[in-house]
């Protein structure tokens, strides 16, 4: 189902910057090492004073185990100390059900159903001209 290679992210997960928000899109199956690298990359990027939020898109992730759960919680805790808020977006229902049964409710994480909603939660005023509704402009 997930293709031939063991992971599309044997290397690194890109951390994109949109306005004053960092956007991280996780997909497929992450190596432990890749997840730890991501944690460091996000913390470093969040230390930039213009960042006030981090959105982690999990819609392409098929499982979150306690290791990845801890990585997400750690990212949220670290970015909070760096004055930025983390929102986890698009978690699949099966993943959410499994996490709760596993015993991980991740109380410190803010969540949103989609990346769009996450950006709104973070008050993405600075990005609305591009990502919000299109402006009515006469030709």
């Amino acid at each position, binding site marked *: *189902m*997930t293709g031939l290679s*063991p*992971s599309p992210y*044997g290397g690194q997960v890109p951390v994109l910057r949109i306005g004053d928000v960092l956007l991280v899109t996780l997909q497929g*199956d992450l*190596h*432990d*090492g890749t997840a730890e690298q991501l944690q460091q990359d996000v913390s470093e990027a969040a230390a930039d004073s213009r960042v006030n939020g981090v959105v982690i898109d999990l819609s392409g992730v*098929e*499982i*979150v*185990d*306690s*290791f990845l*759960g*801890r990585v997400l919680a750690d990212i949220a805790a670290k970015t909070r100390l760096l004055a930025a808020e983390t929102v986890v977006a698009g978690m*699949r*229902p*099966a*993943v959410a*059900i*499994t996490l709760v*049964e*596993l*015993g*991980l409710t991740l109380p410190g994480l803010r969540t949103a159903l989609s990346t769009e909603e996450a950006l709104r939660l973070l008050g993405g005023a600075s990005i609305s001209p591009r990502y919000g509704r299109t402006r009515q402009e006469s030709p």
Partner: protein
Amino acid sequence: MQTAGGLSACLPITSDLDLVWVRQHVRQAAAQLGFGLVAQTKLVTAASELARNTLVHGGGGQMECAPVNRGGVRGLRLTFSDEGPGIADLDQALRDGYTSAEGLGMGLGGARRLVHEFDIDSSPGRGTTVTVASWVSAPPRPREER
């Protein structure tokens, strides 16, 4: 190592790349047997927790995956074994919040909640073997046991 499209396999667990293979194999085998999406996700997550225990605490080992059939109900049995230091106090290791390495302490106890059957055999110096099984439909045993 792994037959194409086969359900039975014996996979080594010696690096975090192997954890990815374990998850993928269990996912494919469960899907092939007809597990629903939530059931697949639970079993793959349990396998990930147990395989990581094998790697981190057991110093590496292997996972055997085999289809099982009980009373016409199909299922998947996963056996994780290592020859590491073993576990002295099983009750403690299964308790939520107990952690010996850096983690959330949900590994063993959490994995047990995600499968229908869970069995652990371990003693100091003899390594650890964890066997779990899940069934495609409700587990074939009396409901009052729950």
